[in-house]
């Protein structure tokens, strides 16, 4: 029997299930077959739990616990010791995973200890050594968190704080340097002023040891006539003092010893973030201005004639993206449910105007039914729509990912947090109330695999074309429509069967209780050859009655294989999902679209058309030969001259007659006025010249005495 039954076809077309032929889908009892192997995550080494590393500096702000353990194991010495350490470390790792999955929330060292106590309650020297090595090898401190509803916010908040801390450190170092420099200017002025040279100040400067040896009153009297009130102009003093006031009173960074409470930068909603940003903008401009003035003052480069005008107009217009990047970015963490109209508007405004804001939009329910309920399913989250729209803004760093995949996306997450400009994080947590009984991590990962929530990143600063800015790299088997999973099972004749099954949107939706009516479980005896995998018939738009029906492989609570057919509405939705995935692939250059062509073109290209271009415009290409050549031809020898470039500036000729010989701008001699002296002076200069570059020429005045002798002496220099 290779044709679907009539009841099955009816279900497919209308969604009406004949109860005697088809069973309802029990979304809790039945699981997609591809997930069957992963139901108990505590036994599997995967990316979770994650350690939010404290004081990471420029390094990774978070890491999978398993990766940290692997790092320790790789550096372990000796083969025997390594095997033992490996066994112990992996048991501790599993125990931590179990503890965290059961709700424990603690820092890494504490968790290692409590896990170790549970694994080996009795003292064991070898085990204790391994624990010690594990603790030392990891050498990280930080909260250990699992994949759950709170994760996106915790993790992104942590990365944001790491970036802000680095920024804060840079600011602190720079502000301290500048304040120290400005303070030094004021102190130096004081030391040179009349007040600074008063007897008491002089006494204090000498210290106690020799205080009796000096008459400080007399010393002050002596110094008074050469001491001014101040060496600083009143304008400069006022400028330095006002800059110091701004630096000391700023509220953007916490400085040690500062009396003012720094601003908060983490917000729950876009509207309050936006209004806070607007309210602080004048203070930001004042601080940026103070930093610029202070840098100039400390360098001694402040020129009132030039800079006063610049800084008088230095207001908000001086605050470009680079200037804003010095300040902490705003962080807004919100749930997509909160994206009602005014919130949406504020978010749009912040992203569009390129404000330094990092926004997390968390989606918990990916399969929310559309508000405009119609026959069409059209599921999809606002977070996902928002991310797609933000791509169109070009300047927004967009990161979309399921929470399960955030570890793989770490570099993008960190880069987005450091990005100069707005960044949008659209994260699906997997913690949907409509999907029961599955670990949150698994739900999130399933949504990604089903292409219901693909991971992508768009880095506006990464290159000139979409192919280099847009990346899909962390998705599974990204060249396929849906990833294939290997399924091994035993058939009714106890034979081993290996099958490759795709994990499609329909598989993912099958976990959600609200959509159970789009599925029908086919009793084993009604299975037929017309039930085929969804992806193999998705492309068909059949006319007339379908001969093949899309079906899924699922597993029940007793681990038995079951087959389920889906209705046409869901297939249409799956088709829509696939189309969206295709367009993402195209953007990433994986599907022969515009981006792929751009990528292909960026490969080394033969330099073409260069010769014709050169031929077309020879005057521009050719060096001008006449101008390039130095005027080397000697002047007529009747005129006296100096080979100026060879002059070694030794002063001989200048001292003979400074009106006749003079130095040029390079301190090299030339004859400025041959008539300003006698022929005798020319000849003497030639004779004295250390490098023999003076040529006296012929005498101008035939009546000069001793001409004959002079001409003879001039001969070697002609």
């Amino acid at each position: 029997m290779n044709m679907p039954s009539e009841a099955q076809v009816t279900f497919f077309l209308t969604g009406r299930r004949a109860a005697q032929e088809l069973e309802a889908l029990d979304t809790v009892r039945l699981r997609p077959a591809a997930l069957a192997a992963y139901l108990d995550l505590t036994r599997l080494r995967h990316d979770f739990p994650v350690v939010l590393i404290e004081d990471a500096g420029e390094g990774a702000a978070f890491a999978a616990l398993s990766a940290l353990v692997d790092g320790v194991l790789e550096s372990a010495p000796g083969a025997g010791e390594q095997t033992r350490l490996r066994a112990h470390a992996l048991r501790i790792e599993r125990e931590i995973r179990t503890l965290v999955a059961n709700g424990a929330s603690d820092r890494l060292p504490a968790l290692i200890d409590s896990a170790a106590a549970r694994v080996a309650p009795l003292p064991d020297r070898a085990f204790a050594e391994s624990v010690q090595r594990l603790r030392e090898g990891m050498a990280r401190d930080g909260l250990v968190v699992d994949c759950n509803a709170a994760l996106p916010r915790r993790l992104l908040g942590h990365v944001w704080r790491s970036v802000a801390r680095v920024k804060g450190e840079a600011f602190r170092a720079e502000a301290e340097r500048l304040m120290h420099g400005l303070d030094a200017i004021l102190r130096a002025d004081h030391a040179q002023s009349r007040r600074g040279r008063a007897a008491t100040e002089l006494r204090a400067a000498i210290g106690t040891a020799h205080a009796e040896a000096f008459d400080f009153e007399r010393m002050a009297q002596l110094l008074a006539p050469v001491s001014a009130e101040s060496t600083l102009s009143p304008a400069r003093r006022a400028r330095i003092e006002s800059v110091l006031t701004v630096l000391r009173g700023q509220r953007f960074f916490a400085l040690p010893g500062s009396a003012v409470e720094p601003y908060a930068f983490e917000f729950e909603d876009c509207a309050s973030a936006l209004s806070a940003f607007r309210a602080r903008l004048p203070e930001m401009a004042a601080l940026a201005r103070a930093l610029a003035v202070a840098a100039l003052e400390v360098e001694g480069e402040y020129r009132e004639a030039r800079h006063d005008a610049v800084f008088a107009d230095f207001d908000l217009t001086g605050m470009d993206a680079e200037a804003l990047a010095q300040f902490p970015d705003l962080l807004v963490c919100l749930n997509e449910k909160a994206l009602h109209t005014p919130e949406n508007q504020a978010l749009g405004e912040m992203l569009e105007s390129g404000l330094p804001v990092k926004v997390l939009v968390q989606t918990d329910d990916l399969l929310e039914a559309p508000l405009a309920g119609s026959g069409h399913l059209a599921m999809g989250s606002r977070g996902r729509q928002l991310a797609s729209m933000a791509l169109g803004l070009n300047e927004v760093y967009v990161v979309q990912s399921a929470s399960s995949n955030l570890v793989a996306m770490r570099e993008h997450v960190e880069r987005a947090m450091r990005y100069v400009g707005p960044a949008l994080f659209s994260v699906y947590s997997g913690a949907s109330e409509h999907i029961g009984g599955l670990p949150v991590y698994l739900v999130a990962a399933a949504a990604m695999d089903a292409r219901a929530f693909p991971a992508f990143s768009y880095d506006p600063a990464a290159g000139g074309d979409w192919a280099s800015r847009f990346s899909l790299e962390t998705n599974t088997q990204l060249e396929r429509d849906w990833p294939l999973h290997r399924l091994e099972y035993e058939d009714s004749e106890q034979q081993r069967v290996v099958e490759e099954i795709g994990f499609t949107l329909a598989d993912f939706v099958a976990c959600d209780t609200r959509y159970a009516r789009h599925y029908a479980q086919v009793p084993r005896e009604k299975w037929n050859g017309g039930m085929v995998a969804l992806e193999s018939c998705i492309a068909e738009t059949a006319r007339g009655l379908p001969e093949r029906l899309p079906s899924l492989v699922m597993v029940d609570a007793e681990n038995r294989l079951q087959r389920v057919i889906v209705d046409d509405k869901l297939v249409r939705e799956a088709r829509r999902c696939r189309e969206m995935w295709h367009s993402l692939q195209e953007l990433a250059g994986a599907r022969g679209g515009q981006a792929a062509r751009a990528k292909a073109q960026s490969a080394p290209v033969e330099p073409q058309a260069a010769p014709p271009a050169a031929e077309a415009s020879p005057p521009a290409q050719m060096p001008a030969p006449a101008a390039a050549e130095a005027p080397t031809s000697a002047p007529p020898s009747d005129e006296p001259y100096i080979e100026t470039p060879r002059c070694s500036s030794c002063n001989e000729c200048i001292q003979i007659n400074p009106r006749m010989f003079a130095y040029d701008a390079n301190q090299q001699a030339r004859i400025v006025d041959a008539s300003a002296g006698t022929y005798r002076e020319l000849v003497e200069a030639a004779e004295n010249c250390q490098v023999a570059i003076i040529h006296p020429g012929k005498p101008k005045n035939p009546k000069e005495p001793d001409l004959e002798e002079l001409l003879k002496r001039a001969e070697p220099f002609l």
Partner: protein
Amino acid sequence: MTTMATECLLQLCEERHEIEDYQGGVPRWCTGCGDNAILAAVQRLCRDEGLHPEKTVFVSGIGCSSRFPHYMRTYGFHGIHGRALPVAEGIRLARPDLKVFVNTGDGDCCSIGAAHWIHAIRYNMNMTVFLHDNQIYGLTKMQASPTSPRGTKSNTTPRGSYLEALQPLSVTLGVQNVSFVAQAVDWIPEMLYDIVKAAYHHRGFSFIRIVQRCPEWLPKVWDPWLHDPSRIQVLTHEDGVPVSESLAKVYRNRLEHDPANLNRAREIAADTDNIPVGILYRNPEVPCYEDLRASTRLRTTDYVKAGLETEFDKFTIWPQA
């Protein structure tokens, strides 16, 4: 956290200086002295590189050469005999924002200051060092120096000096961490300027030996080279200094030499027949001591005071209780 805006503003106030802005007192060197050529080349460098006089310091020891800082309108430190280099190193550590130049003579550097010279090469701190080598003590009226040619008759060697002259280039090239060695002669000002410029742009200890004539005490000693351009061996290479067309016509004895080749540089330095002119050796990879010891710690008054107190306490005699 210097913003781009600040950098632009700093550039905005870059001022153009003329050569007169770098001229200090009127030189009291003898008329015809080669030092004048060095002064002219250095002042030209200051102007062309737009050095800020208040951010530039010339350090010297004792001797004719060491009068140099007096003739520059920049900061200067006319030190004690042979100690120009340690003073310059101290300035470099304390004030990394200053451009440091050192003027020293063959007596100052190669005799009393020889130990400092060796170690300064090894420390490789970023400064430009001019060895004014006139092969004689001139300021004290003619005594033989370590670089005087054998047979030089002087007040200390009336029967002629007995020892072969020390070769400053060979010595410098023999020390670990050497990073820049060049040679110039005062009578080819164009090349002198180009070499000074290349030395200034090298980050590290840039050592130039400048063959300098002393018309007063050794007036004829360089004549064979001065009057025979073929004995000037111009070193050419794409990484070396350029040779202009007019110079190339006069100085035809040219040798292609890659400044990265240390062994070849040593061979060239050993040749006393010719005077090689150009860059003998350059290695920008050698680390500078001030970078190795760099600290981001802000030197506040309290910090400096605490450090000094700790040092002084080591020498304090405390009364017994």
